[in-house]
């Protein structure tokens, strides 16, 4: 794939609109696709997934938590319905009464057409935000099941064109947006000059390994300078590494377990090589889920270093007095990235940062852990055919932000930010999401900066 397939001028980064879509990969027969989808869905089938699939009481409450259903009123967006073929396959093939279901023909075999139809529900209209998991009276974590369904869909070769393209690019080149180590170094040098800041690169030993997302490298490069300013001010021994810089994990988002592992292992290997005590994750939601909560399981044992999101690091450093900031003179609200707050448990960290940074912080109504997702997560922002729906869903977010009447909207996820940028442009909206990290870096007290 050539780099010109990527539209780097766009408000959000994806490949250019393809002339012909290839939402089906490989030349497997229908029978093989179904077999692979189910085998890989059930590949790591543990009791957790079985409990969830066996426990649904069809109450439909999850629909009321899903931005796609609430925004459209279309029942097909009911979260548990998005798993229907997989639920059907579980009951027929794996569940405790699978034999009865098969013998009596109570559950039909899943078909390739069914899976193709469900591609829209599993990828285009689910950001794996996990809001539905908080409403389920049975406590079913539907988001984790969607992630498993994506594993099956990937192996069956049924991934939306653009998401597969960027995931493949990440696997081949180490970056979903084609950022090579050389390009990364060039961008860092540019930021060093632009911001007059020392950026450590390829140090042999460091306590902190900072990683970054390609979205930041290509679209929000100031984040690299801001990271350097913060770590320099905190007098950390730190480095970026060209052999392990990419934080995004499109293997995870698209459903390829092997690619997910390869991406995570690049960071893990680099961290071990420099003897890092901490891997510092950038403003990227899914990177947090991929390394903070899934990294050790990919590695197969506990990681020999800590993993923190940059907002957690900032909160700790500001709370301990290691960093000091000036207060900003404007009202601020904060959009919680789902994978960091609701799914990741770091909801308090940005609030701690904002306590130090501003005098007028305004919580969104129904914000924090129950926040509406921006609608761009889970790879959805890359899928061009999902645009119309994504814009529609974004209106919920707009209402939530506007209710605060804050001057500034901040977030700590570059993927959310590019979705905000794109939707801002679409609606000519007065808000877009700015970076919490960059605002902290801009307002570091002189002694630290």
């Amino acid at each position, binding site marked *: 794939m050539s780099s010109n397939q990527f539209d780097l001028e766009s408000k959000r980064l994806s490949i250019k609109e393809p002339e012909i879509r290839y939402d089906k990969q490989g030349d497997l027969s229908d029978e093989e696709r179904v077999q692979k989808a189910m085998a890989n869905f059930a590949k790591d089938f543990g009791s957790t997934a079985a409990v969830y699939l066996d426990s649904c009481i069809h109450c439909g409450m999850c629909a009321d938590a899903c931005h796609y*259903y609430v925004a459209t009123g279309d029942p097909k967006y009911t979260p548990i319905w998005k798993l229907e073929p997989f639920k059907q396959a579980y009951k027929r093939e794996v569940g405790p009464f699978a034999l009865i279901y098969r013998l009596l023909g109570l559950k039909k075999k899943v078909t390739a057409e069914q899976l193709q139809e469900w591609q829209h529900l599993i990828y285009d209209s689910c950001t794996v935000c996990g809001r539905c998991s*908080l409403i389920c009276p049975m406590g079913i974590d539907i988001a984790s099941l969607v992630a498993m369904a994506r594993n099956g869909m990937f192996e069956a070769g049924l991934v939306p064109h653009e998401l597969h393209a960027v995931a493949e690019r990440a696997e081949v080149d180490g970056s979903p947006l084609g950022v090579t180590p050389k390009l990364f170094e060039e961008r860092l040098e540019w930021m060093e000059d632009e911001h007059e800041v020392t950026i450590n690169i390829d140090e042999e030993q460091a306590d902190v390994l900072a990683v970054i997302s390609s979205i930041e490298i290509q679209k929000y490069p100031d984040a690299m300078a801001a990271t350097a300013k913060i770590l320099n001010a905190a007098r950390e021994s730190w480095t970026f590494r060209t052999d392990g810089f990419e934080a995004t994990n499109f293997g995870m988002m698209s459903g390829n377990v092997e690619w997910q592992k390869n991406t995570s292992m690049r960071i893990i290997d680099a961290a071990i090589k420099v003897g890092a005590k901490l891997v510092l994750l950038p403003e990227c939601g899914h990177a947090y889920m991929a390394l903070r909560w899934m990294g050790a399981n990919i590695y197969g044992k506990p990681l020999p270093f800590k993993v923190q999101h940059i907002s957690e690091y900032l909160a700790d450093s500001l709370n301990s007095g290691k960093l000091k900031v000036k207060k900003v003179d404007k009202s601020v609200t904060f959009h919680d990235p789902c994978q960091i707050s609701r799914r990741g448990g770091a909801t308090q960290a940005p609030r701690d940062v904002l306590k130090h940074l501003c005098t007028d912080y305004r919580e969104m109504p129904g914000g924090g852990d129950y926040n509406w997702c921006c609608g761009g997560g889970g790879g959805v922002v890359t899928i061009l055919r999902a645009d119309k729906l994504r814009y529609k869903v974004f209106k919920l977010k707009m209402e939530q932000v506007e209710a605060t009447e804050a001057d500034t909207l901040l977030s700590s996820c570059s993927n959310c930010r590019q979705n905000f940028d794109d939707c801002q442009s679409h609606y000519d909206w007065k808000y877009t999401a700015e970076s919490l990290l960059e605002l902290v870096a801009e307002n570091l007290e002189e002694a630290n900066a």
Partner: protein
Amino acid sequence: MNLLEFARGPALQVAVYIFIIGSLWRLLGILWLQKKRDFSERRNGRKIRGALKVIWNRAFTAPVFREATKHARFMGYTLHIGLFVTVFLFIPHIVFFKGLIGIDWPGLPNNVIFFVGVITVGVGVAILIRRMTHPVLRLISNFDDYFSWLVTLLPVITGLIMPIRFGVRWETLLAIHILSVALLLIWIPFSKLSHAFLLIVSRGTTGAILERRGART
């Protein structure tokens, strides 16, 4: 052996055996699957606390979702409370349980139970109408949902008919009532009605996972 003897004897006995063995089979069939070890560094250590917290708090929808779910919650609570009262606080049932497990507890007057039973059936009908007309529920519903509805309400309906009789012998009505309970017991392990015990496992599982991450439970 007349119908009542059959219902009280072998029918109920077989139903209880199927209920116990089926429920165990369903639970063990799920739990024997491998439980994957989580190597990530936990933020909070108390998994059990998280499990217990979610087992308790998912009985009460979070405030942010309450408006959207008010109808479902009202009907759900009413049905479950109604079933609890009619099953466990009706004096003849308490006498039956005493014979079975040796202990008893205070009950409610028959007319109160009758009233609660009527409310329960009324709400049950409303639940069915909602399931058949609400776009989301209509889409996601299957045979299990409708048959489980029938099997759940049959014992209540057959119980309510008993004092009215409609000219049928009391013994026959009692036998039908007991047979409807036997049908319910047999159906539970194979259906969504097993949520009666699965909810502890599913809520507990999620609670333990989310608590470990320090995430909202």
